Protein backbone atom coordinates (compact mmCIF):
# COMPACT_ATOMS: atom_id res chain seq x y z
CA UNK A 1 0.00 0.00 0.00
CA UNK A 2 2.71 2.41 1.00
CA UNK A 3 4.73 1.49 -2.05
CA UNK A 4 1.72 2.24 -4.19
CA UNK A 5 1.39 5.71 -2.68
CA UNK A 6 5.10 6.36 -3.18
CA UNK A 7 4.76 5.30 -6.80
CA UNK A 8 1.87 7.70 -7.31
CA UNK A 9 3.82 10.52 -5.68
CA UNK A 10 6.85 9.84 -7.86
CA UNK A 11 4.66 9.76 -10.94
CA UNK A 12 3.06 13.05 -9.98
CA UNK A 13 6.44 14.70 -9.34
CA UNK A 14 7.83 13.56 -12.69
CA UNK A 15 4.66 14.78 -14.37
CA UNK A 16 4.61 18.29 -12.91
CA UNK A 17 8.37 18.89 -12.95
CA UNK A 18 9.28 17.33 -16.29
CA UNK A 19 6.34 16.26 -18.43
CA UNK A 20 4.30 19.45 -18.13
CA UNK A 21 7.18 21.81 -19.04
CA UNK A 22 8.03 19.50 -21.94
CA UNK A 23 4.45 19.50 -23.23
CA UNK A 24 4.30 23.27 -22.93
CA UNK A 25 7.52 23.64 -24.87
CA UNK A 26 6.32 21.32 -27.61
CA UNK A 27 2.97 23.05 -27.95
CA UNK A 28 4.57 26.47 -27.66
CA UNK A 29 1.74 27.70 -25.44
CA UNK A 30 3.99 29.48 -22.94
CA UNK A 31 0.95 31.19 -21.38
CA UNK A 32 0.10 27.84 -19.77
CA UNK A 33 2.99 28.42 -17.39
CA UNK A 34 1.17 31.39 -15.94
CA UNK A 35 -2.15 29.54 -15.78
CA UNK A 36 -0.68 26.54 -14.02
CA UNK A 37 1.30 28.76 -11.67
CA UNK A 38 -1.94 30.46 -10.67
CA UNK A 39 -3.67 27.13 -10.18
CA UNK A 40 -0.85 25.90 -7.97
CA UNK A 41 -0.89 29.01 -5.81
CA UNK A 42 -4.67 29.19 -5.55
CA UNK A 43 -4.71 25.55 -4.55
CA UNK A 44 -2.43 26.40 -1.62
CA UNK A 45 -4.96 28.93 -0.35
CA UNK A 46 -7.72 26.38 -0.96
CA UNK A 47 -5.77 23.81 1.04
CA UNK A 48 -6.02 26.19 3.99
CA UNK A 49 -9.77 26.53 3.54
CA UNK A 50 -10.04 22.77 3.32
CA UNK A 51 -8.34 22.46 6.70
CA UNK A 52 -10.91 24.70 8.36
CA UNK A 53 -13.61 22.54 6.76
CA UNK A 54 -11.87 19.65 8.45
CA UNK A 55 -12.69 21.08 11.89
CA UNK A 56 -16.24 21.72 10.79
CA UNK A 57 -16.07 25.40 9.88
CA UNK A 58 -17.05 26.91 6.56
CA UNK A 59 -14.36 29.43 5.80
CA UNK A 60 -15.16 32.08 3.20
CA UNK A 61 -12.47 34.44 4.43
CA UNK A 62 -9.28 33.09 2.94
CA UNK A 63 -9.09 36.08 0.59
CA UNK A 64 -8.46 38.29 3.60
CA UNK A 65 -5.34 36.40 4.52
CA UNK A 66 -4.13 36.12 0.96
CA UNK A 67 -4.47 39.90 0.71
CA UNK A 68 -2.75 40.46 4.05
CA UNK A 69 0.08 38.12 3.12
CA UNK A 70 0.48 39.85 -0.21
CA UNK A 71 0.70 43.28 1.36
CA UNK A 72 3.16 42.15 4.02
CA UNK A 73 5.46 40.83 1.34
CA UNK A 74 5.00 43.87 -0.91
CA UNK A 75 5.65 46.37 1.88
CA UNK A 76 8.71 44.54 3.16
CA UNK A 77 10.16 44.39 -0.34
CA UNK A 78 9.32 47.92 -1.50
CA UNK A 79 9.95 49.88 1.68
CA UNK A 80 12.50 47.86 3.61
CA UNK A 81 14.36 46.21 0.75
CA UNK A 82 13.80 42.67 1.96
CA UNK A 83 14.54 39.68 -0.25
CA UNK A 84 11.27 38.13 -1.47
CA UNK A 85 12.26 34.71 -0.18
CA UNK A 86 12.60 36.11 3.31
CA UNK A 87 9.26 37.87 3.14
CA UNK A 88 7.48 34.69 2.11
CA UNK A 89 7.60 32.96 5.51
CA UNK A 90 7.13 36.31 7.25
CA UNK A 91 3.90 36.86 5.32
CA UNK A 92 2.71 33.40 6.31
CA UNK A 93 3.59 33.91 9.96
CA UNK A 94 2.00 37.35 10.00
CA UNK A 95 -1.26 35.83 8.77
CA UNK A 96 -1.02 32.97 11.25
CA UNK A 97 -0.61 35.40 14.16
CA UNK A 98 -3.32 37.69 12.83
CA UNK A 99 -5.69 34.74 12.52
CA UNK A 100 -5.14 33.86 16.17
CA UNK A 101 -6.52 37.24 17.20
CA UNK A 102 -9.37 37.05 14.71
CA UNK A 103 -10.00 33.38 15.34
CA UNK A 104 -10.23 33.50 19.14
CA UNK A 105 -13.55 35.34 19.13
CA UNK A 106 -15.07 34.17 15.84
CA UNK A 107 -14.22 30.47 16.06
CA UNK A 108 -16.77 30.19 18.85
CA UNK A 109 -19.38 30.55 16.14
CA UNK A 110 -20.56 27.57 14.18
CA UNK A 111 -22.22 26.80 10.89
CA UNK A 112 -23.57 29.62 8.81
CA UNK A 113 -22.67 32.24 11.43
CA UNK A 114 -18.98 31.54 11.18
CA UNK A 115 -19.28 31.50 7.40
CA UNK A 116 -20.94 34.91 7.41
CA UNK A 117 -18.33 36.50 9.61
CA UNK A 118 -15.49 35.15 7.50
CA UNK A 119 -17.22 36.45 4.39
CA UNK A 120 -17.22 39.92 5.91
CA UNK A 121 -13.58 39.48 6.85
CA UNK A 122 -12.45 39.64 3.22
CA UNK A 123 -14.29 42.89 2.73
CA UNK A 124 -12.89 44.29 5.97
CA UNK A 125 -9.38 43.47 4.85
CA UNK A 126 -9.95 45.13 1.47
CA UNK A 127 -11.26 48.29 3.12
CA UNK A 128 -8.39 48.28 5.59
CA UNK A 129 -5.83 48.18 2.80
CA UNK A 130 -7.72 51.02 1.11
CA UNK A 131 -7.56 53.13 4.25
CA UNK A 132 -4.10 52.53 5.68
CA UNK A 133 -1.30 54.89 4.61
CA UNK A 134 1.29 52.11 4.47
CA UNK A 135 -0.69 50.16 1.87
CA UNK A 136 -1.05 53.29 -0.28
CA UNK A 137 -4.80 52.98 -0.76
CA UNK A 138 -6.29 52.25 -4.15
CA UNK A 139 -2.99 52.95 -5.91
CA UNK A 140 -1.65 49.78 -4.42
CA UNK A 141 2.01 48.87 -4.45
CA UNK A 142 3.43 48.46 -7.94
CA UNK A 143 6.63 47.84 -9.87
CA UNK A 144 8.03 45.41 -7.36
CA UNK A 145 11.26 43.75 -8.45
CA UNK A 146 11.37 40.12 -9.50
CA UNK A 147 12.51 37.82 -6.69
CA UNK A 148 16.26 38.03 -6.22
CA UNK A 149 18.46 35.03 -5.62
CA UNK A 150 18.82 33.25 -2.32
CA UNK A 151 22.15 32.08 -0.98
CA UNK A 152 22.82 30.34 2.29
CA UNK A 153 26.48 30.07 3.34
CA UNK A 154 27.55 30.77 -0.21
CA UNK A 155 25.38 27.93 -1.47
CA UNK A 156 23.16 29.18 -4.23
CA UNK A 157 19.69 27.79 -3.55
CA UNK A 158 17.54 29.89 -5.82
CA UNK A 159 18.77 31.93 -8.79
CA UNK A 160 17.92 35.60 -9.29
CA UNK A 161 14.71 35.60 -11.31
CA UNK A 162 15.72 38.68 -13.29
CA UNK A 163 18.69 36.75 -14.70
CA UNK A 164 16.46 33.90 -15.84
CA UNK A 165 15.87 33.53 -19.52
CA UNK A 166 12.19 32.90 -18.85
CA UNK A 167 11.03 33.89 -15.36
CA UNK A 168 7.69 32.22 -16.07
CA UNK A 169 9.34 28.82 -15.82
CA UNK A 170 10.96 29.91 -12.58
CA UNK A 171 7.62 30.97 -11.14
CA UNK A 172 6.05 27.74 -12.28
CA UNK A 173 8.72 25.73 -10.48
CA UNK A 174 8.36 27.89 -7.39
CA UNK A 175 4.56 27.57 -7.28
CA UNK A 176 4.61 23.84 -7.89
CA UNK A 177 7.23 23.33 -5.19
CA UNK A 178 5.27 25.40 -2.69
CA UNK A 179 2.12 23.52 -3.57
CA UNK A 180 3.78 20.16 -3.07
CA UNK A 181 5.16 21.24 0.30
CA UNK A 182 1.76 22.59 1.36
CA UNK A 183 -0.06 19.38 0.42
CA UNK A 184 2.61 17.22 2.01
CA UNK A 185 2.10 19.17 5.22
CA UNK A 186 -1.67 18.88 4.88
CA UNK A 187 -1.46 15.15 4.20
CA UNK A 188 0.74 14.66 7.22
CA UNK A 189 -1.58 16.70 9.45
CA UNK A 190 -4.63 14.75 8.37
CA UNK A 191 -2.95 11.41 8.86
CA UNK A 192 -1.41 12.23 12.20
CA UNK A 193 -3.13 12.51 15.54
CA UNK A 194 -3.74 16.18 14.88
CA UNK A 195 -6.00 15.19 11.99
CA UNK A 196 -7.86 12.62 14.07
CA UNK A 197 -8.52 15.28 16.68
CA UNK A 198 -9.70 17.68 13.98
CA UNK A 199 -12.16 15.05 12.85
CA UNK A 200 -13.38 14.56 16.39
CA UNK A 201 -13.93 18.30 16.55
CA UNK A 202 -15.76 18.31 13.23
CA UNK A 203 -18.14 15.60 14.32
CA UNK A 204 -18.88 16.53 17.90
CA UNK A 205 -17.26 19.40 19.75
CA UNK A 206 -18.90 18.65 23.08
CA UNK A 207 -17.76 15.07 23.09
CA UNK A 208 -14.30 16.16 22.00
CA UNK A 209 -13.97 18.41 25.00
CA UNK A 210 -15.29 15.70 27.29
CA UNK A 211 -12.51 13.37 26.18
CA UNK A 212 -10.11 16.12 27.18
CA UNK A 213 -9.45 17.93 23.89
CA UNK A 214 -8.76 21.60 24.35
CA UNK A 215 -11.16 22.59 21.61
CA UNK A 216 -10.39 26.31 21.58
CA UNK A 217 -6.68 25.67 21.23
CA UNK A 218 -7.17 23.14 18.47
CA UNK A 219 -9.56 25.35 16.52
CA UNK A 220 -7.26 28.35 16.70
CA UNK A 221 -4.23 26.23 15.81
CA UNK A 222 -5.94 24.81 12.75
CA UNK A 223 -7.24 28.19 11.68
CA UNK A 224 -3.79 29.72 11.94
CA UNK A 225 -2.27 26.94 9.83
CA UNK A 226 -5.02 27.60 7.32
CA UNK A 227 -4.27 31.31 7.31
CA UNK A 228 -0.55 30.61 7.00
CA UNK A 229 -1.33 28.87 3.71
CA UNK A 230 -3.41 31.87 2.66
CA UNK A 231 -0.59 34.27 3.41
CA UNK A 232 1.95 32.21 1.50
CA UNK A 233 -0.32 32.04 -1.54
CA UNK A 234 -0.96 35.80 -1.42
CA UNK A 235 2.71 36.68 -1.10
CA UNK A 236 3.66 34.41 -3.99
CA UNK A 237 1.06 36.05 -6.20
CA UNK A 238 2.55 39.42 -5.46
CA UNK A 239 5.93 38.17 -6.60
CA UNK A 240 4.49 37.05 -9.93
CA UNK A 241 2.32 40.05 -10.72
CA UNK A 242 4.93 42.36 -9.18
CA UNK A 243 2.10 44.45 -7.76
CA UNK A 244 -0.78 44.35 -5.32
CA UNK A 245 -4.02 46.31 -4.99
CA UNK A 246 -6.84 46.19 -2.46
CA UNK A 247 -8.85 44.45 -5.17
CA UNK A 248 -6.25 41.71 -5.73
CA UNK A 249 -8.20 39.34 -3.51
CA UNK A 250 -11.90 39.92 -3.14
CA UNK A 251 -14.96 38.21 -1.80
CA UNK A 252 -15.29 36.33 -5.10
CA UNK A 253 -11.83 34.85 -4.57
CA UNK A 254 -12.73 33.79 -1.06
CA UNK A 255 -15.81 32.06 -2.39
CA UNK A 256 -13.78 30.36 -5.10
CA UNK A 257 -11.36 28.98 -2.54
CA UNK A 258 -14.32 27.42 -0.78
CA UNK A 259 -15.84 26.13 -4.03
CA UNK A 260 -12.53 24.48 -4.93
CA UNK A 261 -12.78 22.44 -1.76
CA UNK A 262 -16.41 21.50 -2.35
CA UNK A 263 -15.77 20.51 -5.92
CA UNK A 264 -12.71 18.38 -5.23
CA UNK A 265 -14.21 16.80 -2.15
CA UNK A 266 -14.11 17.72 1.51
CA UNK A 267 -13.14 14.21 2.48
CA UNK A 268 -9.99 14.09 0.37
CA UNK A 269 -6.72 15.83 1.09
CA UNK A 270 -6.07 16.38 -2.59
CA UNK A 271 -9.62 17.50 -3.24
CA UNK A 272 -8.85 21.22 -3.21
CA UNK A 273 -5.95 20.74 -5.63
CA UNK A 274 -8.13 19.01 -8.20
CA UNK A 275 -10.99 21.39 -7.50
CA UNK A 276 -8.83 24.42 -8.17
CA UNK A 277 -7.54 22.96 -11.41
CA UNK A 278 -11.04 22.12 -12.62
CA UNK A 279 -12.63 25.40 -11.63
CA UNK A 280 -9.83 27.50 -13.09
CA UNK A 281 -9.72 25.66 -16.39
CA UNK A 282 -13.47 25.22 -16.49
CA UNK A 283 -13.96 28.95 -16.29
CA UNK A 284 -11.33 29.59 -18.95
CA UNK A 285 -12.66 26.97 -21.33
CA UNK A 286 -16.15 28.41 -21.09
CA UNK A 287 -14.75 31.79 -22.12
CA UNK A 288 -15.37 30.82 -25.74
CA UNK A 289 -19.15 30.87 -25.29
CA UNK A 290 -19.10 34.56 -24.47
CA UNK A 291 -21.95 36.05 -22.52
CA UNK A 292 -23.36 32.68 -21.44
CA UNK A 293 -20.12 31.84 -19.64
CA UNK A 294 -21.43 32.57 -16.15
CA UNK A 295 -24.75 30.83 -16.76
CA UNK A 296 -23.25 27.59 -18.01
CA UNK A 297 -20.51 27.69 -15.43
CA UNK A 298 -22.86 28.06 -12.47
CA UNK A 299 -25.30 25.48 -13.82
CA UNK A 300 -22.46 23.00 -14.19
CA UNK A 301 -21.36 23.67 -10.62
CA UNK A 302 -24.87 23.10 -9.30
CA UNK A 303 -25.21 19.87 -11.25
CA UNK A 304 -21.82 18.65 -10.05
CA UNK A 305 -22.71 19.33 -6.44
CA UNK A 306 -26.10 17.68 -6.77
CA UNK A 307 -24.74 14.49 -8.25
CA UNK A 308 -21.37 14.40 -6.55
CA UNK A 309 -22.01 15.92 -3.14
CA UNK A 310 -18.79 14.43 -1.83
CA UNK A 311 -16.72 15.97 -4.57
CA UNK A 312 -15.25 14.76 -7.81
CA UNK A 313 -12.72 12.57 -6.03
CA UNK A 314 -15.54 10.45 -4.62
CA UNK A 315 -15.79 9.00 -8.13
CA UNK A 316 -12.52 7.23 -7.56
CA UNK A 317 -13.28 6.10 -4.06
CA UNK A 318 -13.53 2.33 -4.22
CA UNK A 319 -13.96 1.97 -0.49
CA UNK A 320 -17.44 3.43 -0.50
CA UNK A 321 -18.85 1.01 -3.05
CA UNK A 322 -22.19 -0.22 -1.87
Amino acid at each position, binding site marked *: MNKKILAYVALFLVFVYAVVPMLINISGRLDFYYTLTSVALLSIASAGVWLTFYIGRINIGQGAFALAGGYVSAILISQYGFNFWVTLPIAGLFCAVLSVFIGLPILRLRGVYFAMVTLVLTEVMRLTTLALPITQGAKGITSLPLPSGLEIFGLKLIPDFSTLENPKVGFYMMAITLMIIAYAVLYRIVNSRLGHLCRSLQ*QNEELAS*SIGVNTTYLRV*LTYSISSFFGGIAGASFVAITQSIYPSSFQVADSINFMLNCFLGGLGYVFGPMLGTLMLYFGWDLLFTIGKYQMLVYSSLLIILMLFLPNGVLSLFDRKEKR
Partner: protein
Amino acid sequence: MKPLLEVRNVTKRFGGLIAVNDVSFDVRKGEILSVIGPNGAGKSTLFKLISSFLKTSNGLVLFRGEIISNLAPHTVARRGVVRTFQETTIFKSMTVRENIIVSHHLQSKASLLGFFLGSRKARADEKRFGESADRIIGLLGLENIANELASNLPQGHLRVLGMAIGLATDPAIILLDEPFAGLNHDETMRLVTLVQRLRDEREVTVLLVEHDIPAVMKISNRIVVLNFGQKIAEGTPQEIQNNPGVIEAYLGSEDMAVGI
Protein backbone atom coordinates in the same frame (compact mmCIF):
# COMPACT_ATOMS: atom_id res chain seq x y z
CA MET B 1 -11.58 7.59 53.84
CA LYS B 2 -11.93 10.85 51.97
CA PRO B 3 -14.64 10.79 49.32
CA LEU B 4 -13.47 10.88 45.71
CA LEU B 5 -15.97 13.47 44.59
CA GLU B 6 -17.78 15.96 46.81
CA VAL B 7 -20.76 17.98 45.73
CA ARG B 8 -21.18 20.80 48.22
CA ASN B 9 -24.27 22.97 48.35
CA VAL B 10 -24.42 23.21 44.58
CA THR B 11 -27.08 25.54 43.20
CA LYS B 12 -27.90 26.43 39.62
CA ARG B 13 -30.29 29.19 38.66
CA PHE B 14 -31.52 29.85 35.14
CA GLY B 15 -32.98 33.33 35.50
CA GLY B 16 -35.74 32.86 38.06
CA LEU B 17 -35.81 29.10 37.78
CA ILE B 18 -33.81 27.13 40.30
CA ALA B 19 -32.84 23.92 38.52
CA VAL B 20 -30.56 22.57 41.24
CA ASN B 21 -31.04 23.79 44.78
CA ASP B 22 -28.39 23.41 47.45
CA VAL B 23 -27.55 19.79 46.67
CA SER B 24 -24.76 18.04 48.59
CA PHE B 25 -23.52 14.46 48.49
CA ASP B 26 -20.30 12.48 48.32
CA VAL B 27 -19.16 9.80 45.93
CA ARG B 28 -16.83 7.23 47.47
CA LYS B 29 -14.07 5.51 45.57
CA GLY B 30 -15.13 2.29 43.88
CA GLU B 31 -18.88 2.65 44.30
CA ILE B 32 -21.72 2.97 41.84
CA LEU B 33 -23.87 5.88 42.87
CA SER B 34 -27.07 6.69 41.00
CA VAL B 35 -28.92 9.97 40.91
CA ILE B 36 -32.62 9.44 40.24
CA GLY B 37 -35.68 11.64 40.24
CA PRO B 38 -38.78 12.42 38.21
CA ASN B 39 -38.52 14.34 34.94
CA GLY B 40 -37.27 17.87 35.41
CA ALA B 41 -35.77 17.12 38.80
CA GLY B 42 -32.47 18.63 37.76
CA LYS B 43 -30.48 15.44 37.31
CA SER B 44 -28.96 16.29 33.97
CA THR B 45 -28.21 19.83 35.09
CA LEU B 46 -26.42 18.43 38.10
CA PHE B 47 -24.34 16.29 35.77
CA LYS B 48 -23.41 19.22 33.64
CA LEU B 49 -22.39 21.14 36.75
CA ILE B 50 -20.16 18.30 37.94
CA SER B 51 -18.50 17.93 34.55
CA SER B 52 -18.28 21.72 34.31
CA PHE B 53 -20.27 21.98 31.08
CA LEU B 54 -22.34 24.48 33.06
CA LYS B 55 -21.14 26.97 35.64
CA THR B 56 -22.55 26.73 39.14
CA SER B 57 -24.46 29.68 40.58
CA ASN B 58 -23.42 28.67 44.06
CA GLY B 59 -21.55 25.88 45.78
CA LEU B 60 -18.53 23.78 44.90
CA VAL B 61 -17.62 20.49 43.32
CA LEU B 62 -14.44 18.93 44.66
CA PHE B 63 -12.51 16.06 43.18
CA ARG B 64 -9.80 14.53 45.37
CA GLY B 65 -10.15 17.59 47.57
CA GLU B 66 -9.56 20.08 44.75
CA ILE B 67 -12.18 22.39 43.32
CA ILE B 68 -13.21 21.40 39.80
CA SER B 69 -16.41 23.37 39.42
CA ASN B 70 -16.29 26.12 36.78
CA LEU B 71 -13.07 24.93 35.15
CA ALA B 72 -12.99 24.31 31.39
CA PRO B 73 -14.62 20.94 30.56
CA HIS B 74 -11.42 19.57 29.05
CA THR B 75 -9.51 20.45 32.22
CA VAL B 76 -12.03 18.55 34.32
CA ALA B 77 -11.66 15.59 31.98
CA ARG B 78 -7.91 15.87 32.37
CA ARG B 79 -8.25 15.54 36.15
CA GLY B 80 -10.07 12.25 35.66
CA VAL B 81 -13.76 13.16 35.75
CA VAL B 82 -15.26 12.11 32.43
CA ARG B 83 -18.86 12.16 31.31
CA THR B 84 -20.83 10.36 28.66
CA PHE B 85 -23.88 11.97 27.15
CA GLN B 86 -27.58 11.46 27.31
CA GLU B 87 -27.90 11.46 23.55
CA THR B 88 -25.81 8.67 22.11
CA THR B 89 -22.79 10.81 21.59
CA ILE B 90 -20.08 9.32 19.48
CA PHE B 91 -17.98 10.36 16.53
CA LYS B 92 -20.33 9.26 13.77
CA SER B 93 -18.09 8.95 10.77
CA MET B 94 -15.30 7.10 12.50
CA THR B 95 -15.15 3.38 13.04
CA VAL B 96 -15.64 1.96 16.50
CA ARG B 97 -11.93 1.45 16.89
CA GLU B 98 -11.11 4.96 15.67
CA ASN B 99 -13.61 6.37 18.13
CA ILE B 100 -11.82 4.65 20.96
CA ILE B 101 -8.33 5.47 19.74
CA VAL B 102 -8.99 9.17 19.33
CA SER B 103 -10.41 9.26 22.83
CA HIS B 104 -7.01 8.34 24.25
CA HIS B 105 -6.03 11.95 23.72
CA LEU B 106 -5.44 12.64 27.42
CA GLN B 107 -2.86 9.90 27.64
CA SER B 108 -0.63 11.15 24.86
CA LYS B 109 2.87 12.01 25.97
CA ALA B 110 4.02 13.48 22.67
CA SER B 111 3.08 16.95 21.48
CA LEU B 112 0.94 17.58 18.42
CA LEU B 113 4.10 18.65 16.61
CA GLY B 114 5.66 15.37 17.65
CA PHE B 115 2.74 13.53 16.09
CA PHE B 116 3.06 15.63 12.96
CA LEU B 117 6.73 14.82 12.61
CA GLY B 118 6.22 11.21 13.66
CA SER B 119 8.64 11.36 16.59
CA ARG B 120 9.58 8.23 18.50
CA LYS B 121 7.39 9.28 21.43
CA ALA B 122 4.44 9.80 19.11
CA ARG B 123 4.86 6.40 17.52
CA ALA B 124 5.05 4.82 20.97
CA ASP B 125 1.85 6.65 21.87
CA GLU B 126 0.06 5.42 18.77
CA LYS B 127 1.10 1.88 19.54
CA ARG B 128 -0.04 2.18 23.15
CA PHE B 129 -3.39 3.67 22.13
CA GLY B 130 -3.99 0.89 19.65
CA GLU B 131 -3.27 -1.79 22.26
CA SER B 132 -5.35 -0.07 24.89
CA ALA B 133 -8.23 0.33 22.40
CA ASP B 134 -8.07 -3.38 21.68
CA ARG B 135 -8.20 -4.11 25.40
CA ILE B 136 -11.28 -1.94 25.80
CA ILE B 137 -12.86 -3.54 22.75
CA GLY B 138 -12.24 -6.93 24.31
CA LEU B 139 -13.56 -5.88 27.70
CA LEU B 140 -16.78 -4.51 26.25
CA GLY B 141 -17.20 -7.29 23.70
CA LEU B 142 -17.06 -5.03 20.65
CA GLU B 143 -14.71 -7.25 18.63
CA ASN B 144 -17.21 -8.04 15.91
CA ILE B 145 -18.01 -4.43 15.15
CA ALA B 146 -14.61 -2.84 15.75
CA ASN B 147 -14.26 -1.76 12.14
CA GLU B 148 -17.87 -0.73 11.58
CA LEU B 149 -18.68 2.93 11.09
CA ALA B 150 -20.24 4.19 14.29
CA SER B 151 -23.17 5.68 12.39
CA ASN B 152 -24.24 2.16 11.32
CA LEU B 153 -24.58 0.78 14.84
CA PRO B 154 -27.84 0.00 16.67
CA GLN B 155 -28.73 1.83 19.91
CA GLY B 156 -27.46 -0.81 22.28
CA HIS B 157 -24.02 -0.87 20.71
CA LEU B 158 -23.89 2.90 20.59
CA ARG B 159 -24.39 3.06 24.31
CA VAL B 160 -21.55 0.64 24.85
CA LEU B 161 -19.39 2.62 22.45
CA GLY B 162 -20.18 5.79 24.41
CA MET B 163 -18.90 4.00 27.47
CA ALA B 164 -15.82 2.79 25.61
CA ILE B 165 -15.04 6.38 24.65
CA GLY B 166 -15.33 7.37 28.28
CA LEU B 167 -13.12 4.49 29.35
CA ALA B 168 -10.45 5.38 26.81
CA THR B 169 -9.78 8.59 28.69
CA ASP B 170 -8.83 6.39 31.66
CA PRO B 171 -11.07 8.20 34.13
CA ALA B 172 -11.04 7.92 37.90
CA ILE B 173 -14.76 8.55 37.86
CA ILE B 174 -17.11 8.19 34.94
CA LEU B 175 -20.44 10.00 34.76
CA LEU B 176 -23.02 8.05 32.78
CA ASP B 177 -25.98 10.13 31.68
CA GLU B 178 -29.03 7.86 31.28
CA PRO B 179 -27.06 4.88 29.96
CA PHE B 180 -30.15 2.65 29.80
CA ALA B 181 -32.59 5.04 28.13
CA GLY B 182 -34.22 3.53 25.06
CA LEU B 183 -32.77 0.06 25.62
CA ASN B 184 -34.90 -3.07 25.97
CA HIS B 185 -34.73 -5.25 29.05
CA ASP B 186 -32.06 -7.61 27.76
CA GLU B 187 -29.83 -4.81 26.55
CA THR B 188 -30.23 -3.03 29.87
CA MET B 189 -29.33 -6.09 31.92
CA ARG B 190 -26.28 -6.71 29.74
CA LEU B 191 -25.17 -3.13 30.26
CA VAL B 192 -25.74 -3.36 34.00
CA THR B 193 -23.39 -6.31 34.20
CA LEU B 194 -20.94 -4.45 32.04
CA VAL B 195 -20.88 -1.37 34.26
CA GLN B 196 -20.32 -3.56 37.30
CA ARG B 197 -17.45 -5.30 35.57
CA LEU B 198 -15.93 -1.96 34.66
CA ARG B 199 -15.96 -0.93 38.26
CA ASP B 200 -14.40 -4.19 39.40
CA GLU B 201 -11.87 -4.67 36.61
CA ARG B 202 -10.85 -1.10 35.82
CA GLU B 203 -11.48 0.30 39.30
CA VAL B 204 -13.61 3.09 37.90
CA THR B 205 -16.00 4.85 40.21
CA VAL B 206 -19.36 5.32 38.54
CA LEU B 207 -21.89 8.08 38.97
CA LEU B 208 -24.99 7.68 36.90
CA VAL B 209 -28.22 9.46 36.21
CA GLU B 210 -31.08 7.20 35.24
CA HIS B 211 -34.82 6.81 34.84
CA ASP B 212 -34.93 3.06 34.74
CA ILE B 213 -35.65 2.32 38.41
CA PRO B 214 -35.29 -1.49 38.29
CA ALA B 215 -31.87 -1.14 36.65
CA VAL B 216 -30.82 1.46 39.20
CA MET B 217 -31.92 -0.73 42.10
CA LYS B 218 -29.91 -3.61 40.70
CA ILE B 219 -26.74 -1.72 39.90
CA SER B 220 -26.30 0.89 42.63
CA ASN B 221 -24.43 0.77 45.87
CA ARG B 222 -26.14 3.97 46.91
CA ILE B 223 -28.80 6.23 45.44
CA VAL B 224 -29.44 9.97 45.65
CA VAL B 225 -32.97 11.14 44.89
CA LEU B 226 -33.70 14.59 43.52
CA ASN B 227 -37.07 16.29 43.21
CA PHE B 228 -37.60 19.83 41.98
CA GLY B 229 -33.87 20.44 42.21
CA GLN B 230 -33.55 19.37 45.82
CA LYS B 231 -32.10 16.27 47.34
CA ILE B 232 -34.91 14.46 49.12
CA ALA B 233 -33.20 11.21 50.01
CA GLU B 234 -29.91 9.36 49.99
CA GLY B 235 -29.18 5.77 50.89
CA THR B 236 -28.91 2.16 49.81
CA PRO B 237 -31.45 0.78 47.31
CA GLN B 238 -33.40 -0.80 50.20
CA GLU B 239 -33.56 2.43 52.15
CA ILE B 240 -34.70 4.35 49.07
CA GLN B 241 -37.38 1.81 48.17
CA ASN B 242 -38.95 2.21 51.58
CA ASN B 243 -38.58 5.97 51.86
CA PRO B 244 -42.04 7.61 52.00
CA GLY B 245 -40.71 10.91 50.59
CA VAL B 246 -39.41 9.15 47.50
CA ILE B 247 -42.64 7.25 46.94
CA GLU B 248 -44.52 10.51 47.16
CA ALA B 249 -42.21 12.24 44.70
CA TYR B 250 -42.70 9.46 42.16
CA LEU B 251 -46.38 8.74 42.63
CA GLY B 252 -47.77 12.00 43.98
CA SER B 253 -49.20 12.21 47.52
CA GLU B 254 -50.73 9.03 48.89
CA ASP B 255 -54.36 9.73 48.14
CA MET B 256 -53.46 10.24 44.47
CA ALA B 257 -51.49 7.04 44.18
CA VAL B 258 -53.26 4.50 42.06
CA GLY B 259 -51.44 1.27 42.82
CA ILE B 260 -47.90 0.49 41.85
